[in-house]
């Protein structure tokens, strides 16, 4: 019955809002720059166009499809400087288009989603991994193409169980993000039956580039026996110095070693090599998780416009959340959205710099609805109330 109503509503929209020939579907991209705290290594370079570069590839994919259907697309970018007013920028952008990608910290995304101007909008979180945004802080107008920390930690726990590396020693940094990741890892350990033998906070303020070989063995010497060491170091500060310096030889995962992520430069199966090469040709660098999330967000809008032949927000949004929606995302399974919190279902890549080690959900982790729902917040545990209003 519900389905029938939806279908009727959809076809009505189709009639009512067919795209006019000269109409362009505008998609906004808003980025809030944040101060990047210093890290030990001097080698990391974060590309300035991280995120937007992916959106641009998404735009060109949409446009190619669109040209055969008479649909055209445009991207508008706004970068808000550190300490700038992201809310005001969002208000301005939402006047132009209801479709807006957000590359910003969790608090800012939350505030933008609560703006009155955002009520009739469809926002895409392409950057924040905060599980909270998919839980109690969720919003009905906010979809997430970036996986949550819980999805990443669940993927890692599945991998560990599959490998029977089910005793973990956890090392985490002192920053909030590290602690959020730690919480997610602990939760996943419980969910999949992994034992955490000990967790230990990394407090050294010495320069590890020079003395990791001395400090790390001592730091890890007193850990109880474990199968795998898991590191929560989201900024990439100390984790890299732990590898090959531990007291006992163990595989390392988490923020270093085998890293769970939405996307990595080593993904090549399922046609991914083509997306990687399109991206590299255009931007002369490797595609990163935020780039992928932004690409998926732009493609989501494009796919819904293509299939409904409508640029109308209601038609597009209800199509995205319907059972008909499916996006090819180069990860071997169709990407869809969870109806209870707007999170995009997606396989999680477990990889190191040179190769993909596994892709979660791993074989054998079953689910009554969709195996992808073994990753992250499932419907039964969802504390997201506003979404299905």
């Amino acid at each position: 019955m519900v389905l029938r109503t939806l279908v009727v509503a959809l076809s009505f929209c189709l009639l009512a809002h067919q795209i006019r020939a000269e109409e362009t579907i505008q998609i906004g991209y808003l980025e809030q720059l944040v101060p990047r705290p210093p890290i030990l290594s001097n080698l990391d370079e974060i590309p300035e166009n991280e995120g937007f570069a992916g959106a641009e590839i998404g735009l060109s994919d949409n446009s190619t499809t669109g040209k055969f259907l008479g649909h055209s697309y445009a991207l508008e970018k706004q970068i808000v400087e550190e300490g700038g007013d992201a809310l005001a920028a969002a208000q301005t952008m939402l006047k132009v288009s209801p479709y807006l990608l957000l590359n910003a910290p969790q608090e800012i995304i939350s505030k933008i989603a609560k703006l009155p101007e955002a009520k009739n909008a469809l926002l895409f979180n392409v950057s924040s991994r905060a599980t909270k945004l998919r839980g109690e802080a969720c919003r009905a107008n906010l979809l997430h193409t970036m996986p949550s920390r819980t999805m990443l930690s669940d993927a890692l726990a599945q991998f560990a169980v599959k490998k029977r590396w089910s005793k973990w020693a956890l090392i985490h940094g002192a920053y909030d993000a590290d602690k959020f990741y730690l919480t997610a890892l602990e939760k996943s350990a419980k969910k999949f039956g992994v034992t955490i033998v000990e967790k230990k906070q990394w407090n050294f303020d010495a320069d590890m580039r020079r003395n990791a070989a001395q400090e790390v063995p001592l730091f890890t010497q007193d850990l109880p026996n474990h199968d795998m060491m898991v590191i929560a170091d989201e900024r990439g500060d100390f984790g890299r110095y732990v590898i090959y310096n531990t007291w006992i030889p163990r595989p390392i995962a988490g923020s270093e070693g085998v890293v769970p992520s939405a996307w990595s430069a080593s993904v090549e199966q399922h046609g991914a090599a083509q997306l990687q090469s399109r991206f590299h040709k255009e931007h002369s660098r490797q595609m990163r998780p935020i780039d992928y999330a932004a690409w998926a967000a732009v493609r989501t809008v494009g796919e819904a416009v293509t299939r409904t032949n409508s640029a109308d927000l209601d038609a597009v949004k209800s199509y995205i959340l319907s059972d008909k929606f499916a996006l090819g995302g180069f990860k071997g399974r169709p990407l869809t959205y969870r109806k209870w919190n707007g999170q995009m279902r997606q396989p999680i890549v477990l990889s190191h710099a040179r190769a993909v080690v596994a892709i979660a959900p791993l074989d054998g982790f079953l689910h009554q609805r969709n195996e992808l729902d073994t990753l992250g917040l499932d419907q039964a545990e969802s504390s997201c109330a506003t979404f299905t209003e």
Partner: protein
Amino acid sequence: MRFVTILALSLFSTTVAADEIWVTNEKDDTISIIDVESEKVIRTIEVGERPRGITFAQDYSVVFVCASDSDTVQVIDPDTGKVLHELPSGEDPEQFVLHPNNKLLYIANEDDAITTVVDVDERRVIAQIDVGIEPEGMAVSPDGKTVITTSETTNMAHWIDTETQKIIANTLVDQRPRHAEFSHDGSELWVSAEIGGTITVFDTETKEEKAKILFEITGVHKDKVQPVGFEKTKDGKYVFVALGPSNHIAVVDPKTYKVIDYILVGRRVWHMAFNADESKLFTTNGVSGDVTIIDVEGLKATKSVKVGRFPWGAAFRPTTK
């Protein structure tokens, strides 16, 4: 020496039909040649980088191979295995189809969103047609009037008029179309969608969707049931559909569009080829690096033959005239 070989061959051919199946090994840059009778690899020849699409000329005098990463189509003498020459193909040729005129080769350039039309005699590009992103599936209608390119990310079948080399229609299909084939009488176009998990059947007259074929394998999640390559028997009885990482071949009745059976084969099955009388079907299994041989009458897998790494395309070559 040559005389002896010819003599031996002709003697042989009077007794047994030693036909061959040619299989491109994507990650070995080789072609494995399987003897249809003995079901063994009898030759392996080296070709360009990342060979995928493979097709013989109508008289089987040469074989065309897409060497994707060498950005060329190689023309090979099937007797010697030597590359005779290369055709200009545009970048990253993945799959192609030879027009019934035996002269024009329509090539999908996966990285460039282009279909390139090459005159194989004059060895020159006569047209390039803008299509959707990641073109792959290629088909030509039996009357030669229409060529189809399907594009994986744009999710369309592009209908190309072979008189003008222009697109005359674009029809949406499900996510990630991989392969297209016309029915033997030309009245239908079939397009598989890997991520959509379907085959869409179009009426070629109206270009309207006529049927949708769905697949369901007990114990395999539907997301893993990914139709890619498919082949039809000439008698109109079966269509065999490779279902990728579900490691099965579906047997479809082309009259009812219903699945009759599923046959377990090797891992990540891609494409396939029949022998001469269509009693055997050879499937390329990318991940397991082998070819499964199916007994068409019994609808049973009978044997696996180890080939190179990531076998992809398959083509039949009769050695008896």
